[in-house]
């Protein structure tokens, strides 16, 4: 699942992973993402700064649900401060990618985190 308020980013993620056989569920903010949750989702790629519900709030809600508690989550964001990264780590996310991302990097991380 790709959660980002930018359709450009969501589209880039979708195209980057499609060639490797992945299909992508898209959501423009945390609230919409919660509505679209599905147990078949293997990994979450989430932006931090989004309207309605930001990335931290979304992951916080996600971790409360047993079905999704252990699903890997990676933040894909323009934020790069150590403070933010620590906050994310404390929340239980598995990775932090600072935009702009490279396709190869994203694919490798997905390979590493998804069983």
């Amino acid at each position, binding site marked *: 699942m790709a959660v980002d308020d*930018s359709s*450009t*980013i969501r*589209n*880039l993620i979708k*195209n*980057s992973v499609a060639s490797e056989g992945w299909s992508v569920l898209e959501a423009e903010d945390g609230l919409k993402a919660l509505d679209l949750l599905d147990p078949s989702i293997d990994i979450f790629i989430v932006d931090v700064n989004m309207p309605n519900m930001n990335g931290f709030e979304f992951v916080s809600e996600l971790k409360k649900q047993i079905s999704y508690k252990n699903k890997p989550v990676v933040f894909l964001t323009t934020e790069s401060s150590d403070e933010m990264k620590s906050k994310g780590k404390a929340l239980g996310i598995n990775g932090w990618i600072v*935009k702009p991302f490279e*396709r190869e990097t994203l694919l490798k991380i997905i390979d590493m985190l998804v069983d």
Partner: protein
Amino acid sequence: MGDFLSDFTSPKLTKLILGLIKILLLVMAILFNKMIFLVCVSLLLILEIFSLFMKSEKRIIEEKEEFIEDHTPYKEECSNLKRDILSLQHENDKQRDMISRLYRSFKSSEISLEKTELLSRTSMVTVQSKVNKITDDIFSMITGSKNMTDDINELILSLTHGDESLHGVINRLNINIDEIDNISTKIGEVNRVITSDTSSVTDSLLEIRNFTNNILDLADQTSVLAINASIEAARSGIYGKGFAVIAGEVGKLADNSKVFAETINKMVKSAYQAMEEGLEKQNSLLKNVEDMLIRSQQEVHIASNSLLPKIELLAESINKSSITSSSMTEQLNSFTSSMQFLDLVRQIAEHIAIISRERWEETSKEFGEKTYDIDLDSLKEEVIREVTKHFTTKEEWEALGLTVKESMSNKTNNKDLKGDVLLF
């Protein structure tokens, strides 16, 4: 009266005169009658009143002059103050006018800001949409290209390696050519055997012809014999009739034999001819096949000589294709990064718009609710006129919900050309 006199005399003298007048009047009143006394008293009272009136007037004038004299410095001050107030009023008017102009300018900028925000938002939406389209197209192109490259690589690999490669095929061709060569040799042998057998058959046919020729001769002789027998039978008369019949039959037999022999001769001849022709054709065919095989061998040899270096080149191209594939992957990475920078620009533009709007709203509060008598409608029209004079594309007009100028609408004077095209 005292005061009246005091204007002209000293106070003591005034008192004296007044006293004398009073005594005089008393004497007169006593001497003459009360009427005159009353008249005189009335006159005195009138004089007194007039005197008091004059005194008060005089006092007022004096007091006024005293006042004026005392307050002349204040007057100057007042003049100055008045001048200052006028000046301040004038300043105030000027500032009010300036504030009014500032407010007008502020509102004009606010309207411009709204329009530019609209333009910015529209262009960002359009950019995002086009970027997404480009992304889809490029990924599709590269994925397709990569798949094609992989297919080509696989094909090249199959052409250059393994049993089904061109090498293998050429080798098998050469083997087949050699085998065919062997077969051709064997066919030659068979042909020779057939030729030899045919020759034997021909000889036999010739023998048969000789035999039939002999049969013909015999038939001729038998015919002659039959004729002679018929003659002898006729000579014998009645006793020779039976013999004549037999002679006739023998003659017929001889004729029939001749016919059969001639027929056999013809058959032998045609068989002989057919065999000759067949043999000739067979020889010719085998010669052709032999020649074809030789030519094929040569051509395969030439083809394999020319193909082999090309096969080597194909094998090399696999390496180049792998390099190209890696290069395409890198370019895809680079493209992915670049598209995100466009999105970054969009975000920054949005932040600029938000900051501008917030600052604007803060400034707007300073002006309060006053409108400073500005005609906002005509100001809006004026601003739109000023803003749109910079427009060069129909998208800008459409973003503000304005009617696109006729001159900007798509048209073409050539139906074979798509888009907004004019040929002169």
